[in-house]
């Protein structure tokens, strides 16, 4: 058994992009085109031109047995293509890959789940699809059901499951795969916070259990927690292959539409019928100053959320969480925490929601801001807008001797004082 579990050398994947035709290839069109070519002198086809698009080019790296590495990059950088090739779903166009050990891939949660079959039946089906033998599934059945917490619903067709249960079941099966190499693609981004914690915990167990793991995620907190080494892909090439921290910092810095320098510009486009849409988020030390991403613990952090509303949204409230680098949620709250929800008096048009984090509360470190906007009473539905993770800010503690070495979650300055104690009171205490 060699040292290396995965060896990738000069990997490339080319797709032929055809300009012109949308839709499926029909045999009659191919025949018509070819016949047309017989009559024209030139080689250029009349209807379409081709362009070679390299989704991956010159990718080379090695993974040692038992190592857990992360793969990050913008959307379209080639991460999923890389995983597809490693999973043998598609073929490389160039280069060579050596895999030592069986590979199980989690590219999607609930692959092959059929809505008409019961939970029990789907566990067997999904397990078989992922490569487990019937005996193996039977052995792990109870563990899977316990992890997914769906004991009561095992014999109900899956189409009656809530989305949470569905996802828990799907992940439960996948989490118990026992191959030497495991590839996981963004599947940690499912479910509520509780479940994500559970998934993260399980993945962490897997990573430390000596299996070779490849993670792809946009959740930098998860990547930092689960991996020590990270590959940053950019436009199909390996931009960096270093420690996770370095790779993430590089990624964050490079992201144009990301959270550079305290400003986050929403890359997604507004859905046509959305009454409320967040366009920009900035973090500043005060309303009069420009956006920054690094603060001192003594400074307040003012989060400015610029939005555009086409009308008043009834019962709208803003929800925010702050998460530390290790994935811990240190703050969760929403705009109804204060007596009067500011959105009660909102109007249409562009406006700005301002949220102030007082100084000297959060400890030094890096935090991710997660935002979402909901309503219980509006006609549009419950989920009004979910920008998701909009930014990161960094806190430094420069004012105290302990400074950035401070552990714990807070940087609150407590009131430490010495008081004289009289003899009478000391007697009272000693009794």
């Amino acid at each position, binding site marked *: 058994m060699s040292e290396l579990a995965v060896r990738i050398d000069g990997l490339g994947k080319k797709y032929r992009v055809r300009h012109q035709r949308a839709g499926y290839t029909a045999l009659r069109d191919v025949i018509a085109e070819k016949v047309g070519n017989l009559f024209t002198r030139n080689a250029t086809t009349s209807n379409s031109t081709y362009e070679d698009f390299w989704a991956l080019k010159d990718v080379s790296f090695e993974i040692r047995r038992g190592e857990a590495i992360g793969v990050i990059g913008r959307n379209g950088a080639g991460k999923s293509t890389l995983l597809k090739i490693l999973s043998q779903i598609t073929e490389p166009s160039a280069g060579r890959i050596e895999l030592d050990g069986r590979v199980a891939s989690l590219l999607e949660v609930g*692959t092959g789940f059929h809505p008409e079959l019961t939970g029990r039946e789907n566990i067997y089906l999904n397990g078989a699809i992922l490569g487990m033998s019937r005996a193996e599934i039977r052995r792990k059945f109870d563990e899977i059901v316990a992890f997914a917490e769906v004991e009561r619903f095992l014999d109900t067709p899956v189409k009656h499951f809530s989305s949470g249960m569905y996802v828990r079941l799907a992940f439960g099966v996948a989490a118990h795969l026992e191959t030497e190499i495991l590839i996981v693609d963004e599947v940690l981004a499912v479910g509520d916070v509780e479940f994500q914690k559970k998934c993260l915990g399980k993945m962490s167990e897997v990573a430390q259990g000596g299996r070779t793991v490849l993670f792809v995620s946009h959740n930098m907190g998860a990547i930092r927690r689960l991996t020590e080494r990270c590959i940053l892909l950019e436009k199909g090439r390996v931009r960096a292959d270093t420690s996770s921290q370095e790779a993430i910092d590089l990624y964050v810095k490079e992201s144009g539409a990301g959270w550079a320098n305290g400003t986050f510009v929403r890359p997604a486009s507004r859905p046509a019928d959305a009454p409320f849409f967040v366009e920009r988020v900035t973090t500043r030390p005060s309303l009069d100053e420009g956006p920054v991403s690094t603060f001192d613990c003594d400074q307040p952090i003012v989060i400015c959320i610029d939005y555009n509303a086409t009308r008043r949204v009834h019962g709208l409230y803003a929800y925010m969480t702050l998460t530390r680098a290790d994935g811990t949620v240190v703050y969760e709250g929403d705009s109804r925490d204060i007596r009067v929800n500011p959105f009660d008096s909102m109007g249409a048009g562009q406006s700005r929601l301002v949220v102030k984090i007082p100084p000297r509360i959060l400890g030094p470190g890096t935090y991710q801001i997660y935002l979402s906007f909901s309503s219980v009473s509006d006609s549009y539905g419950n989920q009004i807008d979910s920008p998701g993770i909009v930014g990161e800010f960094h806190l430094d503690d420069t004012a105290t001797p302990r400074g950035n070495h401070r552990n714990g979650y807070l940087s609150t300055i407590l009131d430490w004082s010495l008081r004289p104690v009289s003899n009478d009171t000391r007697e009272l205490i000693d009794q």
Partner: protein
Amino acid sequence: MTVVLEPNRAEANYWRSIWRFRELMFFLSWRDVSVRYKQTVIGVTWVLLRPLLTMLIFVAFRRMVGLRANEAPEAILVFAAVLPWQLFSTALSEASGSLISNSNLITKVYFPRLIIPIAAVATALVDFLVTLAILALLMLWEGYAPGWQVLLLPIFVVLTLCLASGFGLLLAALNVKYRDFRYVVPFIVQFGLFISPIAFKTQDVPEQWRLLYSMNPIVGIIDGFRWCILRGDVPLEWFTLACSFLVTALCVWLGLAYFRRVERGFADVI
């Protein structure tokens, strides 16, 4: 066990992989069969009704046209042909569309893609076994006992499966890239219904057409089924049988070769 991935490199252990994933074949088949009958009221009865109704229609047709059958009860004569035809047409239809309907698996999980059409053929086999049971009941009712020839029936069942698989693989692979082919299959089935000896016997076909007619591989299969079930009273010609075997072998080879060749590109095109 080291696996090497390179462009244009066929998987070294393909058949071993298929063996490794044999349980998946069973699960996919089981899934299709279960799902078909969940939440249906007459679902199970449909499997029973279909061959019986087909047989009745053909018997009525024969009466109308004036065809006579002396060798055996007419119902059994026709049913003996409906049986393999149904197996073939169902297996072919299911197999040729199987890759498209399982496209979500093809783009997300790895296993030898051959498993998908084979599982589809297995699903058709389940229906066949039910229909076979109906035939047994029918023969019981007519008081018609089969001879020793019936023991050779499995050979013809396997032949049918091979023909359907070979053809099915070819069409399934073609259908992934050129979606036109989904129109081809219903046409083949309809056309085949007329040129195959279901409503009539091979002996009813005029001599001058016999050679051309025997090129249809189903002819040999249906004649074989009839020979086995009807105590050899309906003759089986060597020539037709040989044609069937040859065309089937050709189909299997062609289907398999083409499928293996284009298999690597499925996830990119589907």
